[in-house]
């Protein structure tokens, strides 16, 4: 019977309106590498955050070494033997490697806040050496290191934080390979094996299935917040994993597939060889009148950045954008709006609505000319339009004057939609996770709205909340992985590609 290092029992996480995790019974044995795979939103990151005590579970419990495991914050998790290497770096660039490793615990190296750096460096060398990192000098400032080295220092730091335990500790790695090249990935895997062989365990999350299969001893597959499979390494292959990752397709009725508009001939948006350094390259596609073009890809595939470029938020390093066959350069979203391109942003509270302004005001923000007569805003017109949209979209609010921040997610999202289509002049909408955090009823209304928009000839570029949603809503799909477009698939209403077909390219 293998030693169980860490275990979750029926762990769940519920947010108001959505269930992120449900009934997770995960087991990590001593001295093993557990892989964790799943689509966007499957719950992988949420689980990692819960295990590292950055967030609290809403149900269930966890155990470490057979004893109850619960902590209020990251520090407590560290003290109990769990460490996490975040995707966003946590190292301080102007501090040395040693200073980063021992950040907050300098006391043992000096007196009265004066620190003997040499002593600390020696200690740091030992830590680095235990990971086989002999060529990283502890006195060097982090900014001098390249990314792979920084990644290693992060791992060393976490390892050192959770302590030199006889019983072994648990290290969580969240997409550590996203920006590493082949050689660096190999090195990383070597270190991971070293850590494992020392009696520790690792949970490894990556969207690159080939990697996960290569390094993991066992693999958990997550889907829609639940674990759907546990596969031993010897039985694992990509096909099996794809199958388990992908949900049962929801009925077309839910997504109003029957109302999917047949795209016209006219090309209203074209991208040619778009590139943004470090994010994506050689991205080309066309959007026709009334078409919904869905972009599929995992986090980090570059699809978010493509959207940012399309709506003017970011300027591309290469390539061209054509709106109605005229080449455009968007200096900012205002310029894009002028050309008829507008986005519904992903982060509703931060980028979508302006909370302290009223509903009517929010709705009018992208189309102020339409409510003005000779450049003077008419409050009556603004209010009337707002009332129209409130009725049309069934927005639950006390009235046009209500502060938008008090609206629920779904209703706030409808306000954003109203803003985007209110002017009537927009030709292309970029929808970035339009149904995120929205309840089921409102979702259906938004799907209907999307069909109505396309019926009017507006073209949509869609980043869906789930793969299912993206496939069902779109008439064409492009799949991105690691910054490139790997596939382009037709998705006519009577012959939608299966999720497995698409996931294959994503991972």
């Amino acid at each position: 019977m293998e030693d169980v290092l860490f275990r979750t029992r029926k762990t769940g996480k519920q947010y108001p309106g959505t269930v992120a995790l449900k009934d997770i019974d995960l087991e990590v044995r001593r001295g093993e590498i557990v892989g964790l795979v799943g689509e966007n939103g499957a719950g992988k990151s949420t689980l990692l955050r819960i295990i590292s005590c950055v967030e609290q579970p809403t149900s269930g419990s966890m155990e470490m070494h057979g004893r109850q495991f619960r902590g209020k914050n990251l520090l407590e998790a560290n003290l109990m033997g769990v460490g996490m290497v975040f995707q966003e770096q946590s190292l301080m660039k102007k501090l040395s490697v040693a200073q980063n490793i021992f950040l907050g615990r300098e006391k043992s190296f000096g007196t009265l806040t004066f620190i003997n750096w040499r002593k600390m460096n020696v200690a740091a060398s030992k830590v680095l050496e235990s990971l086989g990192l002999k060529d990283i000098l502890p006195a060097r400032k982090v900014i001098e290191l390249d990314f792979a080295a920084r990644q290693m220092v992060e791992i060393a730091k976490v390892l050192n934080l959770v302590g030199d335990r006889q019983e072994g500790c648990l290290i969580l790695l969240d997409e550590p390979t996203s920006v590493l090249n082949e050689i660096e990935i190999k090195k990383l895997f070597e270190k991971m094996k070293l850590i494992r062989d020392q009696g520790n365990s690792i949970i490894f999350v990556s969207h690159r299935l080939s990697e996960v299969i290569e390094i993991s001893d066992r693999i958990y597959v997550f889907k829609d917040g639940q674990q759907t499979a546990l596969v031993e390494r010897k039985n694992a292959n990509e096909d099996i994993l794809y199958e388990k990752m992908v949900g049962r397709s929801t009925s077309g009725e839910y997504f109003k597939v029957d109302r999917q508009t047949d795209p016209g001939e006219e090309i209203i948006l074209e991208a040619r060889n778009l590139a943004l350094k470090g994010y994506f390259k050689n991205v080309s596609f066309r959007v026709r009148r009334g078409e919904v073009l869905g972009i599929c890809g995992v986090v980090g595939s570059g699809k978010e950045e493509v959207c940012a470029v399309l709506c003017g938020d970011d300027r591309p390093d290469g390539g061209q954008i054509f709106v109605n066959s005229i080449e455009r350069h968007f200096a900012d979203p205002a310029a894009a709006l002028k050309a008829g391109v507008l986005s519904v942003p992903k982060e509703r509270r931060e980028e979508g609505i302006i909370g302290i302004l009223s509903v009517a005001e929010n709705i009018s923000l992208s189309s102020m000319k339409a409510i003005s007569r000779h450049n003077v805003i008419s409050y009556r017109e603004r209010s009337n339009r707002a009332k129209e949209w409130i009725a049309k979209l069934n927005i639950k609010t006390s009235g046009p004057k209500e502060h938008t921040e008090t609206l629920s997610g779904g209703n706030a999202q409808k306000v954003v939609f109203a803003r985007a289509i209110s002017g009537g002049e927009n030709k292309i909408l970029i929808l970035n996770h339009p149904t995120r955090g929205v309840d089921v009823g409102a979702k259906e209304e938004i799907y209907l709205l999307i069909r109505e928009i396309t019926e009017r000839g507006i073209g949509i570029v869609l980043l869906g909340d789930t793969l299912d949603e993206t496939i069902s809503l779109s008439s064409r799909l492009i799949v991105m992985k690691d910054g490139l477009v790997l596939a382009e698939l037709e998705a006519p209403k009577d012959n939608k590609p299966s999720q497995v077909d698409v996931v294959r390219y994503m991972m």
Partner: protein
Amino acid sequence: MTQRISGRTILDNLPWLSLIVLLGVFTSINPRFVGAYSLANIFLVAAPLLTLSFGATYVIMAGSIDLSVGAIVSASCVIYGTTFPILGNWSILVAVVFGFVAGSINGLLFIWLRIPSFIVTLSTLSLWKSVALLLVGGGAKGIPMKLWKGLAWADLALGIVPLLFLISLVVFAVFYFVQSRTALGRSVYAIGANERAARMCGLKVNSTKFWVYALSGIGSGAAGAFYSIELKTSLATIGDPLTLLSIAAVVLGGTPLTGGRGSVLRTLLGAMLVIIIQNGLNTVALDVYWQQIVFGAFVILAVFLNSEKGGRTLIIK
């Protein structure tokens, strides 16, 4: 049925409530406070402060700061005084145009260089202060008395309300109109409330930022002219206390420094509050030195009361 009075409601109405209370307090200490002479004086002193504070309001509502207002006023005052002997009352135009140019420089530097507004305006403050001192050779230069006839129009009044004050009310009306009824005005609010969202909505963020500074400059330019007209001098140091006073006017009126909310109407109240406090403290013969302390404390208090405790980052942490 009792109506709940929320903390917010009290705060929102605090400015004009304070105004009334203070008026009452000062008048009871010295009944001459509401005498015609005293009031007329208050209006006269208020006029330039009002004019320059309206533009400052926009800047603050947009979430930025303009530390150079005082210096622009000084430079404008000097420019007016210097050109008046040559151009007569057309100098007002010169002063206003100068203000526009100064404000535009602030706006352009802010947008192009993408550095915090307080650094930009701190730097231009030095610039305009230097210009003011240079033009006047160090201190003050009076407008020759024989030309004072040309300024007689400024002494006109409607009852006890001086013409200059009425002009500042006209300026107020314009600013109020812009803030409530134009795309520019609404953009100012949006940007101050949530710049990222405002940008994603397709609002012209850079253009708006430019114009708030340009308008602030125009207000300051006009104020400088007012001072020169009132004092009949070119005074290069007139603007020194004005930056703090204009911020105090905005803040005491209830406009939060975090931006996104507020109104020039509030600033109107705030400026009157400032003047009344100043005059009132004078009338009750409180040490001038206490005024500085009082203002500093008031400003901190007002900012605290109006700030959103969510810890939104302001100009710099």
